[in-house]
């Protein structure tokens, strides 16, 4: 048994436990990789939260941007995926073709996706603004060149990759026993009632799963923001363009660690991220007992 488990045991110690412990140690130090770590106590954490003399000028922005993309992005994805999955699970011709079309973009590399969307969102020459400008009375936004519209542009980009969630919801919907719909239809329930009292409750385990995954991914939002910011602004030295509107938490960790070489501070930020992720997951798990309905048609 230990022989079979050994790859994982070695890996878990070497690539998870030890790095995490080291990371915790570095988070209490100043370390620039070239001179030995210097013990700082809680100074990194004080600087992060602004307790004492100074605060990291970008920390709050990074937190705000990250929460923004989670608060708007995760529910949008879930609602869109449920809606599309419901349309696709009605028996009809062409379901498989539609599913393939919607599903394909979700496997596309995020770097490639970011490149296409920066090109399509180009305010002057991109097709999106050409379309928007052709509608009278609309002034098309500048998207990646305007701090108020750069995050909404990322939301649209995110929706393009919603296909995997659609597939998960389709499976969830097909698992709901027909009899339940028949039973409630006999009582004369209309669409909204069927959705509210059968579909939605029986989908809660899937919603719960996508919610947790969405939040964990949201806290680590990186590729799309990194690439779109760089490509749109045409430079790679400063992250989070335009005007820090795309400076997400992970980007700020990256910038501190690998551009500024403030390894200690980056580790402190990473540990805060880790703790927040754990707390969020724990809170969701505890509250899930109230709103997630296991049983029914779902084999969980």
């Amino acid at each position: 048994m230990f022989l079979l488990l050994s790859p994982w045991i070695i890996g878990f110690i070497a690539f998870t436990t030890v790095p995490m412990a080291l990371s915790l140690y570095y988070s209490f130090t100043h370390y620039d990789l070239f001179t030995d770590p210097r013990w700082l106590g809680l100074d990194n954490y004080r600087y992060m939260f602004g307790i004492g003399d100074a605060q990291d000028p970008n920390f709050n922005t990074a937190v705000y941007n990250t929460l923004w993309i989670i608060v708007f992005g995760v529910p949008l994805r879930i609602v869109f995926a449920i809606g599309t999955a419901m349309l696709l699970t009605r028996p009809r011709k062409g379901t498989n073709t539609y599913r393939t079309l919607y599903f394909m973009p979700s496997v596309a590399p995020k770097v490639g996706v970011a490149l296409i969307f920066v090109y399509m969102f180009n305010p002057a020459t991109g097709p999106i603004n050409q379309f928007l400008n052709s509608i009278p009375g609309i002034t098309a936004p500048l998207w990646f060149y305007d701090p108020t519209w750069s995050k909404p542009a990322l939301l649209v980009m995110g929706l393009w990759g919603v296909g995997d969630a659609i597939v998960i919801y389709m499976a969830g919907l097909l698992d709901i026993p027909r009899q339940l719909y028949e039973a409630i239809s006999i009582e004369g329930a209309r669409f909204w009632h069927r959705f509210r009292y059968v579909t939605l409750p029986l989908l809660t385990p899937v919603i719960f799963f996508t919610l947790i995954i969405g939040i964990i991914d949201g806290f680590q939002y990186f590729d799309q923001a990194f690439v779109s910011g760089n490509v749109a602004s045409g430079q790679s030295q400063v992250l989070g363009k335009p005007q820090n509107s795309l400076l997400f938490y992970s980007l700020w960790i990256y910038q501190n660690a690998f551009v500024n070489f403030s390894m200690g501070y980056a580790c402190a930020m990473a540990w805060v991220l880790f703790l927040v992720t754990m707390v969020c997951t724990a809170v969701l798990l505890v509250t899930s007992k109230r709103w997630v309905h296991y049983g029914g048609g779902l084999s969980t």
Partner: protein
Amino acid sequence: MTAAADVRRRQIPAEIRRRRMLAAIAEHAILIALSLCFLLPVVMMLFTALMTDEQALSPKLIPDPFVWSNFKTVFHQIPLLRYTWNTTLYAGLSTLGVVLSCVPVAYAFSRMQWRGRNAVFLLVLSAIMLPTQVTTVSLYIIFARDLDWTHIQWIGTLKPLIVPSFFGDAFSIFLLRQFFMTIPQELSDSMRVDGGNELTILRRVILPLSKPAIAAVALFNFIYAWNDFYNPLVYVGTNPDGWTLSLALSSFRTLHHVQWNLTMAAALIFMIPIIVLFFAAQRVFIEGITLTGVKG
């Protein structure tokens, strides 16, 4: 049965039939409109890749003339073959590593009884939720400094990306375990009666029955590694010789002043293997994703 259905269908009043018909048309209209939205970026990419440089910067949407030679030019402009080779190496070897290491681990977590199994499995699950940032910074430090005594410089090479995959990946272990659990225990037991040890059972019973799950794990890992941007950026970002396609693409425009048409041509070359894989193995994908999402 069909006769009964016919009778029922005839009873539906014309009014309701018309409404259903309209609803069906409306639903198809929505689905087709969505299809166009999902297709548009791909079409745009293809068209832009076929444009001349000036056209790619103009509001024109359809290339005129079609410049197929862009796909050749881009190989001369940047070392695309090298990047493709690096990406293949990373994706291929790390997939091999994950499959080799995770199958036995998942077996121990699902088909063998031992004390503390569930508690240890909880560790695997929590590792899935671990933000990569918590480990990358100190792993980078380890790879950059503490390995000096081995006289191997790991930063700037693909080793930090490939080697860890030979020591298990939490998500793949989870997925394989979920699948192994569904295989009837009697099959293992009868093999045990015949005097087979755990390795024989794994080889003769579990492996042949788990091909779809193993295929899904391999596929997910290959695509994850092929698309991966964050890890190559951290570990090989400083050494352009070790770049993967995702890294090269992200800095095309800023570093090489490469034009949009060539960028899109390269992006297509980057994405085509994934798209081909997707169409070749769509079933495996859908089954794998369903296994993670619904049966979790």
